[in-house]
């Protein structure tokens, strides 16, 4: 099971605790999280299911390459980090 961890910046809006989920890709892992927490989906993905422009996802210290279809493969021991790209002031 991979672990998905979310930025603490989301705490202000809704609960987003770490989740252990199964899945072969980033997209599958996130979909498993959103199945349990549907309100979280719109904070991370846009209407077309792509990563929001100012949201970053890292697997084992590297940014995911496919931000549109979320097809980057993951392993069962991977830590997936979802956090905000720095913007604004």
């Amino acid at each position, binding site marked *: 099971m991979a672990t998905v961890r979310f930025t603490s*910046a*989301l705490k*202000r*809006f*809704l609960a987003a605790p770490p989740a252990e989920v199964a899945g072969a890709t980033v997209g599958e892992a996130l979909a498993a999280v959103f199945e349990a927490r549907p*309100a979280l989906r*719109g*904070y*991370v993905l*846009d*209407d*077309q299911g*792509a990563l*929001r422009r*100012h*949201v970053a996802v890292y697997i084992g210290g590297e940014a995911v390459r496919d931000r549109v279809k979320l097809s980057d493969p993951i392993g069962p021991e991977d830590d997936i980090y979802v956090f*905000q*790209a720095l*913007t*604004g002031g």
Partner: protein
Amino acid sequence: MAERLYVGTRKGLFELAPDNGQWDIAATHFLGDPVSAVLAQGDTVYAALDLGHFGAKLWRRDGADSWQELAVPAFPPKPEDAADDPHPWSLGKIWVIEPGGVPGRLWAGTMPGGLFRSDDGGESWLLNEPLWFMPERRQWQGVAGGEQPGISSVLIDPRNPDDIRVGVSTAGVWASTDGGASWSIINEGMYNEYMPPEQKGLPIAQDIHRLARCAAHPEIVWCQHHNGVFRSEDRGHNWHEITAIRPSKFGFAVAAHPRDPDTAWFVPAVKDERRIPMDGKVVVARTRDGGRSFDVLRNGLPQRYAYDLVWRHALAIDASGERLALGSTSGGLWISEDCGDSWSAPEARLPPISVVRFASN
């Protein structure tokens, strides 16, 4: 119902109430978050947020209850054959929320130009597909040179909830008389100075900054256009320019008197690359004779080195027609109880203001 004014800013929503004859901040909400639209119907308040990282959000508060997050309008999956569509199929922000004239119904105007309807008080939203899938929609131009057009104004005829007009930056005025099942562009008589000569007068080339309608005489519609001020006496079909506007014809906001068809307010600024008040003085222009003449109102507004700009939704009037509120990009907030003759400011240094709105009954 309590009198309330809601002020949406770059850094939160401020709720004001009258206190011994002076408006003051009674509560703060969503501190730190950009607010893009507000609607207050009685004790029910809707607040749209435009979160930099996490997208557009919508919250509702019923009476003394705490805020509850609602679904946001969402665009359908983008079809393969829409690859050349210049507009994103994803909600940018909610720009305006209006009551739909029947219980539970709301309309939301958005960037990138989608119009959405809710029939359950904002719990769920449906894209108006006839407008979005219309081939002409791909000709809509983005706001301020951006890629996203925006529906800034949604006018529902108080006598007929199926009669809808929307104002678009930049795509003119679109009308439906069948509840949104079909649409046509209706605005004749406007011109757009910055377009090539042969395109100046095209209805779709018109940058409608904001529309306002007289509630008691819905055939009267006022428009603050990118290139000037216009008035229509036939529900937005034919427009004539109001050249008497002073001190300048550029601006974003307009408010229409709820009962007097000849009275409206504007907030003129230096066009259009500069977007600052004329001579560093904040003024409101008011006509009481259908646009033939204007009073330039300045009593209580800053008159020295003031560079406050007032956005499309930051001038509001209440149902009395006497009380107005004005909010600026510099965080200036002024309220008038006498049709704009004099203005006073609550003690506060607010963030940049995007929207001001009185609670309606």
